[in-house]
């Protein structure tokens, strides 16, 4: 298990956003994390990525309890993430953005840039390397977000709704890209709203609602789970 | 022991006037989320307006209020509308636009030096001033009457602003804009108009402070600078944006300035004030009383 979450709980001023959540991600696969809006996916994500210290519970990354460690330390340990609302360094070029990421593992600029270029080539962003990231289309910004995270050489990559707001054809491209990344040996935890993509990509899916896990299993299992349908479409939908 | 009480009373009175001077600054910050570096200069302009209102019309210094407050309100309103608003519009997605700070500093330079150009560097003091030197004797203790009036003005203004914000439709609109500009505009509130209003009111409050000061204080082009940094310190002590906090912060500064010199050289009180200021910034940035401002 590359990541093991045990009894994770996070409260904000009495409000329990994550409630005793446990899950395991085996190395090398893609795990989907889904749930309706406001279910607590991003909070769980932020706890794992070190933005929030958990109120209770433990998070093991490669066997080490990382609960409460800072994001930059986690990044150096091989845990990278993207943001749901992309946060490019907008006044800088694409190459610059990715180089910031590759500096996580190298000291010299020439080395870092070389690695950034490799990542850009890998993700088919190479021809846009000199564009200001603020001028990219949303699809390219999402791709840049992934490229930057990938440049830190992660073992586990947390992707937060990287397909939201994309057109269907673009979604397909990103799906392909994620597969490619997985095939290069990076484990992926995916939060996504676009079910088609989740279903196509994930080896396993965890569904949460109100901070609690309500279902887990292979995509098809989960999609058929009445609990899940209820959570998504309202409780009366199941009957119809 | 008695003299400490006498000093403390003086400190509270003088401090309340500082608080009054800072009240407008905190109001403007509360709504616009911007530190108005021109606030001291607006106080200075108010003092000139008060001075001339009294000198030219022969009004009782406190009656000048009826002239100074509307004039300063309009001055502040137009200043925000004409000079500052365009910057807000250009940077409407920035929560605390630094450019606005710089622009208010430009306004400070312009106002101070324009006053120097127009009125010269002289120190002015109301000549026919029925309040000058009036002291209230409380046993052995002496209390300055104009400062007492100033204290009254500070408390009343604070109360009036509080009630205005709590009880009137415009006040609620100002509070709503301060808390969530976009949601307020969804309720039909024009945020820029509210900014103008808040700036106008903040400036008018500086006018009240000027009227309180002019009977016992000098008027000169750089007088605002003396109050400027004091006002910043006060609003941070009281909590940026907190109405009651401005008064309390002012009183704390007044007390330090008044009581501490009895134990050390007066020049060290400044250092104490800065020390306290930094302490509050680090330990309790929401202000000494840590009150989240609801107003």
């Amino acid at each position, binding site marked *: 298990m590359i990541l093991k979450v045990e009894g994770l709980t996070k409260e904000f001023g009495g409000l329990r956003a994550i409630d005793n959540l446990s899950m395991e991600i085996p190395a090398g696969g893609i795990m989907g994390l889904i749930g309706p809006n406001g279910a607590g996916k991003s909070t769980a994500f932020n706890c794992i990525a070190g933005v929030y210290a958990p109120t209770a519970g433990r998070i093991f990354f490669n066997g080490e309890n990382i609960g409460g460690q800072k994001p930059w330390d986690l990044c150096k340990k091989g845990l990278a993430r993207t943001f749901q609302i992309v946060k490019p360094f907008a006044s800088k070029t694409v190459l610059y953005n990715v180089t910031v990421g590759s500096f996580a593992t190298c000291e010299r600029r020439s080395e870092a840039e070389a690695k950034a270029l490799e990542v850009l080539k890998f993700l088919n962003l190479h021809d846009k390397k000199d564009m200001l990231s603020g001028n990219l289309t949303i699809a390219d910004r999402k791709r840049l977000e992934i490229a930057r995270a990938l440049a830190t050489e992660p073992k586990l990559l947390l992707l937060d709704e990287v397909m939201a707001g994309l057109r269907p054809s673009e979604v397909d491209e990103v799906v392909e890209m994620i597969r490619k990344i997985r095939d290069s040996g990076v484990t992926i935890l995916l939060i996504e709203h676009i079910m088609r993509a989740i279903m196509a990509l994930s080896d396993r899916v965890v569904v949460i609602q109100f901070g609690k896990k309500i279902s887990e299993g292979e995509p098809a299992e989960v999609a058929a789970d009445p609990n899940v349908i209820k959570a998504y479409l309202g409780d009366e939908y199941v009957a119809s | 022991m008695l003299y400490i009480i006498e000093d403390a009373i003086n400190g509270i009175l003088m401090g309340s006037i500082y608080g009054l001077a800072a009240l407008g600054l905190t109001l403007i910050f509360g709504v616009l989320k*911007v530190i108005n570096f021109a606030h001291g200069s607006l106080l200075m302009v108010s003092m000139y307006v008060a001075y001339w209102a009294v000198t030219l019309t022969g009004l009782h210094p406190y009656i000048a209020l009826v002239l100074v407050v509307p004039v300063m309100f309009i001055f502040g309103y137009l200043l925000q509308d004409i000079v500052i608003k365009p910057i807000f519009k250009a940077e409407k997605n920035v929560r605390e636009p630094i450019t606005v*700070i710089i622009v208010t*500093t430009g306004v400070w330079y312009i106002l101070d030096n324009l006053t120097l*150009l127009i009125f010269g560097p002289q120190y002015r003091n109301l000549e026919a001033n029925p309040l000058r030197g009036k002291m209230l004797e409380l046993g052995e203790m002496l209390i300055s009457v104009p400062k007492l009036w100033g204290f009254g003005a500070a408390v009343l203004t604070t109360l009036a602003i509080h009630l205005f914000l709590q009880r009137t439709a415009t006040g609620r609109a100002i509070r709503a804009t301060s808390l969530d500009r976009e949601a307020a505009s969804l309720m039909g509130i024009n945020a820029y108009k509210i900014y103008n209003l808040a700036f106008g009111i903040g400036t008018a409050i500086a006018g009240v402070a000027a009227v309180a000061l002019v009977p016992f204080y000098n008027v000169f082009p750089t007088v605002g600078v003396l109050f400027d940094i004091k006002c910043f310190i006060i609003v941070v002590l009281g909590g940026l944006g907190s109405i009651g906090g401005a008064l309390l912060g002012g009183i704390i500064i007044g007390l330090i300035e008044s009581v501490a010199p009895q134990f050390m050289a007066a*020049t060290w009180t400044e250092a104490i004030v800065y020390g306290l200021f*930094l302490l509050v*910034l*680090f330990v309790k940035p929401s202000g000494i009383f840590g009150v989240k401002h609801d107003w």
Partner: protein
Amino acid sequence: MTRNTLQRLLPLALLATVLCLPLAVRSATYLHIMILVYLYAYLTTSWNLVGGFAGVLPLGHAAFFGIGAYTSTILSLQYGISPWLGMLVGGVIAAAVGVLIGLPTFKMRGAYFALATIAFAEGFRVMVENIDKLGPFALNGPRGLQIPPLNFGLAEMMFSGKEPYYYIILIMLVAVLLLTSFISRSKLGYYLNAGGEEPEAAMALGINVARAKVIAMAMSSFLTALAGTFYAQLNLYIHPKSAFSLDLSFEIAFIALIGGRGSIVGPVLGALLLRPVSDFSRIYFGDTLPGMHLIIFGVILILVMTFQPRGLQEPLTRLYERLLDRLSGERRAA
């Protein structure tokens, strides 16, 4: 000439001109103004490491300037230590103070940070004004320290003419420009820019943003202190109100904002514009319209902030590019 050669030649030509300027400009006044332009460009470039790259607004750099000025002056007056050495000592002390100030303040946001830095600088001024002697060191309180103009010479960093000062500050400026442009291309520069622009994203990419800022602060305060020593040796007199002047702190920030925060040339452009404007308008209006120069200064601040809120560096760069196009007859490669 091709555009590329031109692009390489122009800066060299500029450097050559600047180096030869004292040969053409014999007037010490204009040299002095140029010295001040370079001094402020130097100060603003140093400030830019924090205020530009790291994306905060420090308004108290006079604290480091004053520390530099006082340290070297005290060491040279009381211990006969060359200001060149004193400069470095002052720099180290300022860097330590910068770290101490930076650690707590970088956690603050916007207005609070600006106010805290003002309070630090003013606090230093008040302290120096109130302290006559600090252990073995005579600060002389409000009376300040005067350097008797007796031992002219390079070792004493004291000269009877302006030219040596001109070259010293020019070298300092070029060095600091090279240093910042080196930093902006190094890991630290990437980290500062990233942390300034999108702190959350930066943290997720392995950047300890607070630590990067503190490092930048240490460098910035070190460099600022060096200028303090230069200033003391240029004027041969320092006192708390001038060495720890709030106006100085503000002016540095203004130059950066007018020129263009966070860019390498921005501070130089800002200083090149604001310094002469304020000096010349003081010269021309000083006796007839007192205060006019500050009014002009204020108007420029407002106009630039209204119409070019990101500073003049962007439009001027465009203009420069167009000039290059015109001169070479080539279009800029996209």
